[in-house]
């Protein structure tokens, strides 16, 4: 049975410009953003990313609403949580998001043979991986940073000192939350990418990643605190970004596993970078010959 009709509309050669590798990289990056956010895909693909973003922003929006209301009743300086506290929520959301997004970015291309199309275009395997990582970094950074921006601008809006004065006096919050957001990405994404580079299904990659991260804290806590094996404090993968974030924002804390094991905050930062580098090299090796 004929499955379509071939209409002869003629053929026209492309006489316009060709953007080469830079154009291909931009297209790859945009596709990564669309894939991570579920854009131009079925509605169910949009539920998780946009739902998580809404959950991340909701507390900040609620705070602003409550602050505006209470101000009308003469109550001032309402503070439910600090920027550092807010990372406890957005960090968990980022973990869930990265778990799902890394699989969506890498697994379908490999399983459905789309890598063969990339391999026939003016792109290297590293271009592909960097384009995917850049798209994920953009979205995860936005995920983590936008709620802080909303919180800061909301506080500035209701501040007695006035909007401009509040923002000026809290500029440190802007860069600290930005850097901390990048640290969370660096701590989460490489391992998620590594698992996605080998998984046959995105859900399996996500499940294993969440399992490793979730188990790393209680397992290392038991080994460090109860058994006294301090070096295992290095493997508290989920807590390293929290340690670095507290260090950046000047929040005193000593309850986290790496700290209980006696490691300075810079060790947590070094561990994040080392794990990231190792995972990055392993992913690059996996994609050395993609098809």
């Amino acid at each position, binding site marked *: 049975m004929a499955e379509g009709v071939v209409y002869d509309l003629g053929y026209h050669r*492309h006489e*316009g410009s060709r953007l080469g590798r830079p154009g*291909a990289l931009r297209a790859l990056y945009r596709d990564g953003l669309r894939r991570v956010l579920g854009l131009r895909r079925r509605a169910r693909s949009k539920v998780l990313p946009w739902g998580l973003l809404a959950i991340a922003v909701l507390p900040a929006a609620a705070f602003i609403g409550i602050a505006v209301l209470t101000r009308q009743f003469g109550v001032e300086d309402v503070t439910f949580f600090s920027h550092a506290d807010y990372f406890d929520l957005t960090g968990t959301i980022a973990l869930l998001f990265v778990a799902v997004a890394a699989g969506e970015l890498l697994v379908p291309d490999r399983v459905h*043979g789309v890598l*063969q*199309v990339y391999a*026939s*275009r003016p792109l290297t395997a590293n271009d592909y991986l960097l384009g995917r990582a850049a798209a994920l970094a953009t979205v995860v950074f936005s995920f983590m940073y936008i709620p802080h921006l909303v919180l800061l601008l909301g506080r500035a809006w209701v501040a007695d000192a006035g909007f401009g004065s509040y923002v000026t006096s809290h500029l440190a919050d802007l860069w600290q939350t930005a850097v901390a957001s990048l640290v969370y990405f660096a701590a989460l994404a490489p391992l998620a990418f590594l698992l996605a580079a080998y998984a046959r299904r995105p859900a399996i990659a996500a499940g294993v990643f969440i399992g490793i991260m979730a188990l790393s804290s209680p397992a290392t806590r038991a080994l460090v605190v109860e058994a006294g094996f301090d070096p295992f404090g290095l493997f508290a993968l989920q807590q390293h970004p929290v340690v670095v974030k507290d260090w950046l924002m000047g929040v005193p804390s000593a309850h986290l596993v790496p700290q209980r094991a006696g490691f300075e905050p810079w060790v947590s930062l070094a561990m994040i970078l080392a794990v990231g580098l190792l995972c990055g090299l392993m992913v690059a090796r996996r994609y050395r010959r993609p098809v």
Partner: protein
Amino acid sequence: MSETIVATRGLGFSYGDIVALHAVDLDVPAGCIGLVGANGAGKTTLLKLLLGILRPRAGSVWALGRSVPAEALAVRARVGYMPESDCLPPDQTAADFLGYAAELAGLPARAARQRASDILGLVGLHEERFRPMGGFSTGMRQRAKLAQAVVHDPDLVLLDEPTAGLDPEGREEMLGLIGRLESFGINSIVSSHVLTDIERTCTWVVMLDGGRVLRSGPLTEISATGEVAVEVLDDPAPLAAALAAAGAVVETVGNVLTVRGGPGDPFDLVRDALAATGTTLRRLGPRRTTLEDVFLQGGGDG
């Protein structure tokens, strides 16, 4: 010979201990080129070497005048590739994926969308362009794969088993599309183990067997036998006798005589014998063999 689009010198590649290509020397002209050989002959390996996906273990390869893999990215910007296996994301529409495939080759976004629409019309998928490709039939998937290979208007397209899995009607349509590529200014290398597909679409044939080149040349030369086929309406016996008397070797099957050897041009011999015996001629021409025959004979003397 017209412009060379692909050349190799001493090209070799192996997967571990398994030799896939051994000392391959080729000069392939522009046009529609058939790459034939049994499964495992090295066809797909050669295509991947042309794209720079694989690196040669020995020798050199050039495509469109550029060295591969040194200039692989520049080559890939002007080459399309239709892989044998699946390469379509099931959750994307054909229009979205083709637009993206064109952008990945460096076309600006607007031009990419326009070409995606045009090419989908060309391959007969215009009505299906907004459907996720996961619901496509095998024939539609093959046409979408061909579309992504040509959507960026390449100078050369590499087609790996383009008719695989197609029913007879789908095969006809695919061969028709491939046959039209040359008129669009797109050279093509069609890899196939279905020799009749190559005979129908290509003008130049490269035969591979066990990683070695059996033959490479114009289809007309490869299929030529140097023999003359004569079909007559009358009793062929007097004509056969006259030709044998003139020194030719004649084989008769029904009313068809195959003539070879003899002094001078065999066509002249046949003309003279027809005139002498008064036999009524129905058809006269060079006898051509099929690619299958050439392949089974080990590539002839090439």
